[in-house]
């Protein structure tokens, strides 16, 4: 069934179709409609889930952790300051190997107080041990939530499904809502090997000395390394059932491209408009939209950028004192694999400033006219 829905409601539908059993969330702009719709679904019986009202995002994640440890499928959503407040609990979820799924609406961090998009909120959680998916359309949001539960539960690692504030969260698009019976077949009920139950009492997350802690982290990393293959496999399976492939990256005209624009989130689709224009001008430009940021899809990124002469990474985020974060990752992915390839790092669109096809024209012009980047960061659209 096709519906015209906003990005936030796409998250709600994803959680509903996945038959989430516990939802605990605290409202924050621009995420509020995600839980508004879920609370209505819980109230009218559309979704058979326990909706837990909490007094903070820290408690929302704590409630999801408890629910997941008890064997329930748990979902929450937040944004920006709320995600930052969850930080401690994010480590508890991943360290506890609990496959919670979280929808995060990318909103810039304050101060100055802001509600508009950039990726510094979720990228600040890079090292918490969560899988991170960056979506570019409302359709992708619904589909990815369902896939995220499948991947997370198979490997006991939580997932973050991320979308841009307003550019996606409040933008209405046509979405093909997957059929519930087919989703049920794709995503069977959550059945963890251990759970909190009086029938088999266990202590979870207790004191772990130096003789054991490192092995637990080793196991988390080893399972993280299995995620790319699992995403590709479950993505193909999704394609067989629903006709849409859900992969690690989304590449557009990369095969013969001399310059590849690397993007994430909604800026990826804008990049394509620019790519089409530049192709009309005879410039061999392609777009590589990175969908999965953690684990970083090293292998496929290396393969798709292999024949390009230059790479231009457009980051809607910044690691102060270093570069844009995707630019760093790109460099680390291609280092030591083949000869020198200049990677140009651009920063654009912080705090919700628009990234337009003109921004990408500027990016490509700079990349063409320079052998290497004159500055470590090239700023797009900043009033210097």
């Amino acid at each position, binding site marked *: 069934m096709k519906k015209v829905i906003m990005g936030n409601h796409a998250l709600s539908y994803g959680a509903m179709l996945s038959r989430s059993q516990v939802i605990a969330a605290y409202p924050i702009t621009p995420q509020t409609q995600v839980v508004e719709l879920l609370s209505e679904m819980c109230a009218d019986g559309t979704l058979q889930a326990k909706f837990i009202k909490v007094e903070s995002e820290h408690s929302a994640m704590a409630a999801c952790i408890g629910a997941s440890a008890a064997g329930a499928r748990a979902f929450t959503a937040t944004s920006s300051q709320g995600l930052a407040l969850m930080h401690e609990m994010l480590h508890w979820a991943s*360290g*506890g*190997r*609990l496959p919670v799924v979280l929808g995060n609406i990318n909103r810039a961090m304050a101060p100055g107080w802001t509600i508009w998009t950039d990726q510094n909120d979720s990228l600040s959680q890079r090292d918490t041990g969560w899988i991170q998916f960056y979506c570019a359309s409302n359709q992708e949001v619904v589909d990815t939530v369902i896939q995220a539960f499948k991947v997370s539960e198979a490997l*006991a690692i939580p997932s973050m499904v991320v979308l841009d504030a307003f550019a996606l969260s409040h933008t209405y698009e046509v979405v093909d809502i997957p059929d519930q019976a087919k989703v049920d077949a794709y995503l069977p009920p959550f059945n963890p*090997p*251990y759970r909190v139950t009086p029938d088999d009492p*266990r*202590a*979870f*997350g*207790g*004191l*772990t*000395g130096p*003789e*054991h802690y490192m*092995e*637990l982290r*080793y*196991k988390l990393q*080893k*399972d993280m390394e299995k995620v790319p293959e699992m995403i590709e496999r479950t993505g193909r399976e999704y394609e067989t059932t629903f006709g849409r492939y859900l992969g690690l990256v989304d590449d557009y005209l990369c095969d013969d491209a001399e310059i590849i624009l690397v993007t994430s989130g909604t800026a990826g689709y804008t990049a394509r408009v620019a790519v089409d224009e530049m192709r009309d001008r005879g410039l061999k430009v392609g777009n590589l939209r990175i969908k999965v940021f953690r684990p970083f899809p090293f292998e496929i990124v290396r393969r798709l950028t292999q024949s390009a002469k230059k790479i231009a990474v457009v980051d809607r985020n910044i690691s102060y004192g270093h570069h844009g974060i995707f630019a760093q990752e790109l460099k680390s992915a291609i280092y030591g694999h083949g000869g020198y390839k200049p990677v140009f790092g651009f920063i654009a669109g912080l705090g919700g400033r628009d990234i337009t096809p003109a921004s990408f024209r500027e990016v490509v012009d700079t990349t063409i006219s320079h052998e290497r980047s004159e500055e470590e960061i090239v700023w797009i659209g900043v009033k210097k």
Partner: protein
Amino acid sequence: MKPKKEIKKVVFQSAEEMPTMPMSIGNMLWNKTGSWRNIRPEIRLEDCIQCGICWKFCPDMSIEIEAEWPVVNYDYCKGCGICAEECPAKCILMVEERK
């Protein structure tokens, strides 16, 4: 009462044999946290009305009922004083530890 578990330190020899999540590796059997205590509860059984409230309220499950009377497990009791506060017969005294 169930017999007490044998106190044995578990050390896994490989990551493979460890559970995926940090769970039930029995560390609290040998890590006796009662040594953190500054004040200790002492129960005057002659005034005890056997209500079981201390047993129920103890956040560390350090009060056991043996032959229908409460007994403090000093291996784990940290001396929080909740049992003394909640005791309706006021028969639990918190006494300074002497070391």
